[in-house]
């Protein structure tokens, strides 16, 4: 397994390089540059700005310069947030996004798997329909609608929670609604997949055998059915976690959170090349790491898989 992990990590390098190259070309190809603003800057000032950010060099040189800095752990200076380096910005924003996204992921796994099991075991019952109804709502209602509704109810009507903002990790009240929103969206997906998967497993031969041996349902489910039924859910964790980051673009705007979602939006809109590239590198690393974890989890869940 260790050699497998090492191999996977090594493969990450060309993946990362490919992603950076494609992204580099795309952000530079987008019409309008970081210094195109309402007021056109004069040629001389533009030259000053370009020199400051090394944009006066040929594209290939800039690219190599970027890669060289990257290898040394420097993501460069931000164009949009002129007083900060991309490293500073990421270091401040990432913990916020990771906390919200990570907690939401854990909670939604517990609730989603639980609801999925409950629904699968009582297929077509009232409980099943109720769970599926919630899951459908979660899939259908976009977060930019659900978020403001949550604020309206819990912040403005009931006054239980703040309407948004962030007050550090010591103030969990600010995290409740964003986590709840992401959880709701994830639970919808996880619940449905878990239900479908468990229903399928419960109809397979080895479960019939277990039942024939006279095992109680609880044992059949927990000891025999759960592991294989969890496989599709595990495969889902990687993409879901990544989509938590993209969903964060909406949640962070709705709840005014200082996370990486807002950096991405502002970075892209302002043609902040270094910020966008830095965040793409970061998200790629997270995605690769998650996929690796998912693959390792497969081995733990399915005895047929060995690395």
């Amino acid at each position: 397994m260790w050699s497998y992990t090492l191999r996977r990590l090594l493969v990450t390098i060309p993946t990362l390089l490919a992603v950076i190259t494609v992204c580099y070309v795309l952000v530079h190809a987008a019409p309008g540059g970081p210094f195109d603003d309402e007021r056109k800057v004069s040629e001389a000032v533009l030259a000053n700005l370009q020199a400051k950010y090394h944009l006066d060099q040929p594209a290939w040189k800039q690219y190599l310069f970027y890669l060289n800095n990257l290898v040394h752990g420097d993501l460069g200076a931000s164009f949009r947030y002129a007083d900060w380096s991309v490293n500073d910005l990421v270091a401040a924003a990432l913990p916020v996004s990771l906390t919200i996204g990570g907690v939401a992921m854990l909670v939604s796994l517990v609730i989603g798997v639980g609801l999925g099991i409950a629904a699968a075991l009582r297929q077509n019952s009232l409980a099943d329909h109720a769970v599926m109804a919630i899951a459908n709502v979660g899939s259908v209602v976009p977060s930019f609608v659900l978020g403001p509704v949550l604020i309206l109810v819990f912040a403005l009507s009931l006054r239980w929670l703040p309407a948004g903002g962030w007050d550090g990790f010591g103030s969990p009240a600010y995290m409740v609604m964003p986590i709840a929103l992401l959880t709701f969206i994830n639970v919808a997906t996880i619940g449905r997949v878990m239900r479908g998967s468990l229903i399928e497993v419960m109809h397979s031969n080895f479960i019939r055998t277990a039942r024939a041996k006279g095992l109680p349902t609880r044992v059949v489910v927990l000891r025999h059915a759960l592991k294989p039924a969890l496989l599709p859910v595990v495969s889902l964790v990687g993409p879901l976690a990544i989509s938590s980051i993209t969903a964060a673009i909406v949640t962070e705007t709705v709840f005014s959170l200082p996370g990486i979602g807002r950096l991405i939006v502002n970075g892209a809109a302002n043609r902040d090349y270094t910020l966008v590239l830095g965040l793409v590198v970061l998200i790629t690393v997270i995605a690769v790491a998650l996929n690796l974890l998912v693959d390792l989890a497969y081995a733990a869940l399915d005895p047929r898989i060995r690395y």
Partner: protein
Amino acid sequence: MTLTSVARACALASLLASSAFAAVVPAGVTLHPTQTLIRNNGSEPESLDPAIAETVGANNITRDLFEALTAVDGDGKVVPGVAESWKQVDPTTWTFKLRQNAKWSNGDPVTAEDVVYGIRRFLDPKTASKYAATYGVFLLHGKEVAMGKKPPAEAGVRAVDKFTVEIKTPFPVAFLPQLVSNNNLGPVHKASVEKFGKDWTKPGNMVSNGAYVLRDWVVNRSVVLEKNPQYWDAKNVQLTRVTYLGVEDGNADVKLYEAGQNEFVYQLPPGTYEDMKKKYPKEVRNAPMLGLRYYDFQTQNPVFKDVRVRKALTMVLDRDILAQKVTADGQIPAYGIIVKGMEGADVVEYEWAKWPMARKVEEAKKLLAEAGVKPGTKYTFSYNTSEYHKKMAIFAQSEWKNKLGINLELEAMEFKVLVKKRHDGAFEMARDGFIADYNDATNFLALIRCDSDQNNNFNCNKKGEELIVQGERSTDPAKRKQLLTQAAKLIMDDYPIIPLVQYSLPRLVKSYVGGYSLLNAQDRFRSKDLYIIKH
């Protein structure tokens, strides 16, 4: 310059110097025991370095942190800042006398050298400030310094003695006291800039000379300022703590306000003004601004080369309906380049502005027929994606379709793409807007001048340009005003742009926030002018 105009300038300067200082709480107002304010700023500042700050949001904060030679008070009037008085010694030379009790937050005195350093640093190409050339043109050799053709030391600013700054201009700049209220041209604490380099604007490092000091800054969350005990006018500063939020989303902004987590909404989201007025009659504050929403014609584009076509399209848009029903947020119909409240030129409206619409339409149809434009002709209109701009564009589309049979294709794009198109002239008609950097007509005339980097219509009226140059050189304020007004009228008769509405800024401010004046047409609310009334 004649003797009388020198005398007038001196009299004006001393009058300004003696005018009341801000944040004086009116008699009968009881202050709240806690003087703190949370104000949303509409966006995260791009920088807190006064030389780099460019957007309204960043300047709002640097205006609290730093004080320039002069300042603009709550009513939009120029008042003394670090300079307690100033005078124009000859048409192109000004001296500013600094107050001797002005201090940096670390206790150092604010000296003429700090101002000279601040201005030189701002113009220095190494600083790469986007405004260097914009303001640089008003300083002797300023533009050359910004362009790297002369060293910063040659810019027209010098310290005469420890507390006197002399500024030389390349031509008479009547509004220089107003111009130097911008912090880009203000003092900077050299020792801390040199010590901390790029990090000098971080909390703990920054040394500032304004009414506030930087306490905390978390990107996309807040910038927290605290009262500066070293500030020379600290006794008249009421707010002890000001928290700037960087919430961009208008709806989130209002929700935070309603939840009590924000006391100052940056701007009401489009379409909510009327409802908010009913819901919060005492809290909706809406002041006209020195700003204009307009559309550009690409006058070099063959489809808009004919002035008759541009005139016809300009005439038939019903600004009253646009302001009252479409944008519906208190904006003012506009028929010229100079907006109400702008100094240095008179508001000149088109002679047809007051005609009944039927007559305008008839005339417009005639003009189009003469120009050979047939009903069914299609033009393309470019705008940056936004609900507000879209509403206005759809209105223009329906006006031209219904009244003239002209079709308009709407092309929405990202902001950066639009500005690039505008600067390159790669459009037919485009949305545009401008908010004054300083209160003088020349600021707005730059939008329609030849060779101006803000001219997005590519029209050049030689005669008008000449009048502006003459006006700029004139030392007689009345003559200057007359020349600039005449120029504005002459150029606008080329119909290079379609003036639509004058900006107003509808926002919510808690009723207990005092000192918020509706006369502040540049939307420059220093926190030192605000106070919290007992509630």
